[in-house]
């Protein structure tokens, strides 16, 4: 059963390990998240906890049904909401805070985030096509995709790699090592890079 937390990507830096190795880390502001709701087997058919992240002002909740939901649950409004599968949902009450101490240093986690959007990208950027020749009499044929099919097929096959929207997709990175947890500042340091820009929302979940 997975357990998770919402966080914000702050940026990257490098730190020294005890043996002197310097490694690149991504700094995450992880939690504290508020328990907004619980899902159990009898009522919902699955066990999960709904977490809210980033406290916001009451008047900033422009969505009226959402404002009513916060009022009904009697919790402070928050900017982001996500459900996580939790094994021990009995341990938590609505309104409880969940912090980064559900993880341990050295543990491996999965991280879900949205990658950086690249806009409408050509085939060289999107599918690593090699493009046309720069010389040998070529003109205006340097980044074109080339042929997209045979004449006797009379159509383009499904799945043909073509230009289009690239990035801004949900990406899950698996088995990232937690290098360090700083509970005072609610920071988690993960080894290596993460998808998405700085200040983006990320979900961290345990590897089950």
């Amino acid at each position, binding site marked *: 059963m997975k357990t998770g937390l919402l966080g914000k990507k*702050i940026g990257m830096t490098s730190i020294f390990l005890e043996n002197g190795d310097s490694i690149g880390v991504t*700094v995450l502001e992880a939690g504290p998240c508020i328990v907004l709701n619980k899902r159990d087997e009898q009522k919902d058919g699955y066990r999960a906890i709904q977490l809210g992240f980033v406290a916001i002002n009451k008047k900033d909740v422009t969505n009226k049904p959402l404002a009513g939901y916060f009022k009904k649950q009697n919790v402070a409004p928050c900017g982001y909401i996500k459900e996580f599968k939790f094994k021990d949902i009995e341990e938590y009450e609505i309104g409880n805070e969940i912090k980064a101490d559900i993880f341990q240093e050295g543990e491996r986690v999965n991280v879900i985030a949205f990658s950086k959007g690249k806009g409408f990208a050509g085939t060289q950027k999107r599918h690593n096509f090699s493009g046309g020749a720069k010389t040998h009499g070529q003109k205006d044929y340097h980044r074109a995709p080339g042929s997209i099919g045979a004449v006797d097929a009379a159509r383009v096959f499904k799945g043909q790699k073509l230009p289009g929207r690239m990035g801004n997709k949900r990406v899950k990175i698996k088995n990232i090592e937690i290098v360090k947890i700083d509970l005072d500042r609610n920071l988690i340091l993960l080894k290596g890079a993460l998808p998405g820009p700085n200040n983006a929302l990320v979900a961290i979940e345990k590897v089950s």
Partner: protein
Amino acid sequence: MQFIKNIENEQMQKIALEVKPGDLVEVHQRIIEGERKRIQIFRGILIGRKHGGSRETITVRKVTKGIGVEKIFPIHSPNIEQIKLIKKGSARRAKLYYLRDRVGQKGLMA
């Protein structure tokens, strides 16, 4: 961004390093060989400081048996025991890469 600055500041061990390009320095580096630990000393002329902050590195150059040897040390690494100033130099620029082309006595900073 403040979080990142804080993390980097915590990494810094030698906050004010009193050596400048042109100085003759001695870098004491901790080396672990299996079980054994020892300190290796590298003495040479500091020819440049780079990056800054917790990622700052120094380049030290010496000439052994007519062959130039350069080592780059991350100065905030826990494996750097100390960086000793042996003799003050008088360099007029920040990066002394021109010393690589000098042969013999000219390669020494006055």
